[in-house]
C-alpha cells in the first residue's frame, strides 16, 4: 500500500495525532472517560495503521519484538510491584494510601501508576498479537 499517495500522506499526518490522543486518554482517565485499557488499544491502533500502510517490516522497525515482550512484562511488573511496595511501606497489598503524604495523594499516585502498567501491557500485547498474525503468512 506504499504506492497509494492518499493513504501515505493522510496516515503520516494522522498517526502522531492518534498517539497524542492515546496519551491524553491514558493520563486524563481520572477526570473523564478513559483509562489504561482504552489508551493501550488506541496507541496500538496507531502502530497497526503504520504497519498496514507502510509494510510489516517498517512496522517491526518502529518497535522490535524483543522490546514489545519487555514492555508487556514490565506493565504487569509495575502493577504487581506497586502492591509489593505498599506491603513494604506498612499497608496491605495494593493499599495505595501509604504511598503518599496524605491518604488522597497516595491513592491518586497509586491509581496513576497502576493505569500506566495496564496501558503498557495492553499496548504491547495487542501489538504482539497483530505482528504474530501478520508475520505468519510470510514465507
Amino acid at each position, binding site marked *: 500500500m506504499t504506492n497509494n499517495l492518499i493513504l501515505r500522506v493522510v496516515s503520516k499526518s494522522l498517526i502522531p495525532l492518534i498517539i497524542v490522543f492515546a496519551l491524553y486518554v491514558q493520563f486524563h482517565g481520572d477526570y473523564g*472517560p478513559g483509562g489504561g485499557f482504552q489508551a493501550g488499544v488506541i496507541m496500538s491502533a496507531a502502530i497497526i495503521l503504520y504497519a498496514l500502510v507502510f509494510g510489516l517490516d517498517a512496522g517491526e522497525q518502529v518497535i522490535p519484538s524483543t522490546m514489545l515482550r519487555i514492555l508487556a512484562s514490565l506493565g504487569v511488573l509495575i502493577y504487581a510491584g506497586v502492591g509489593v511496595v505498599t506491603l513494604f511501606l506498612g499497608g496491605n497489598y495494593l493499599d495505595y494510601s501509604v504511598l503518599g503524604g496524605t491518604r488522597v495523594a497516595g491513592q491518586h499516585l497509586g491509581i496513576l501508576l497502576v493505569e500506566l502498567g495496564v496501558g503498557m501491557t495492553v499496548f504491547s500485547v495487542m501489538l504482539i498479537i497483530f505482528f504474530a498474525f501478520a508475520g505468519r503468512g510470510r514465507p
Partner: protein
Amino acid sequence: MIDVFIDVILLAFLAITAVSIVRMTNLFAIIMLFGIFSFLSAAMFVVMDAVDVAFTEAAVGAGISTVLMLATIALTRDHHEKASVSHRPWLPLTVVIVTGAALVYGTLDIPGFGDPEAPAQMHVAPYYIERSVAETGVPNVVTAVLASYRGFDTLGEVIVVFTAGIAVMLLIGGRRRKSNAGSNEGDENDK
C-alpha cells in the same frame, strides 16, 4: 419520548445486523457486519450513559477484533463459508427457542429499565458514588472503582491479557514450516 425512539431504532438495527450475520455466507462481509454490530452496540452504550464502556467497546470490538478476524481469513484463505449441504436446523432452532423462552420468563421479574428504586442501585453504588472523590480524589468513579476499590480484579485482568499474548506468541509467533496437511510437527523456529 425521543430517547425511547433512539433506543428502538438502535436496537432494531442491532437485531437486523445480527440476523444478517447468521444468514450470509461470504466471510468478508460477515466480518464487516460484525464491525458495524460492534459500533452500534457502542452507540447503544453511549445512549445508556456508559461512556467508559462505549469507549472500550468501540476501540476493542470494532478495532482490534475486526483486524484480527481479517488477518485470520487472509491467512486461511477461506473467503466463503461452505453452504450447508445436510444440515437440519430444527434441533438447534428448538434448543435456541426453548432457552430464549426460559430467559424471557426470567426477565419478567426484573424491575423496569431505568428504575431508580431498583435493588441494583440501592446498596453498593451509592457508597461508591458518595465516597469516591473524598477517599481517592478521582472524579471518574469507574476509574476509581476499577483501580482502587476493585484493584485485585484489574490485576487478574492484566494477567489474563498478558497470558493471551504469550499463548498467541507460542501458537503462531514463529515462521510457518512448510509441511503436509495432517503431519505438522508443532514446533516452530524462533525468530
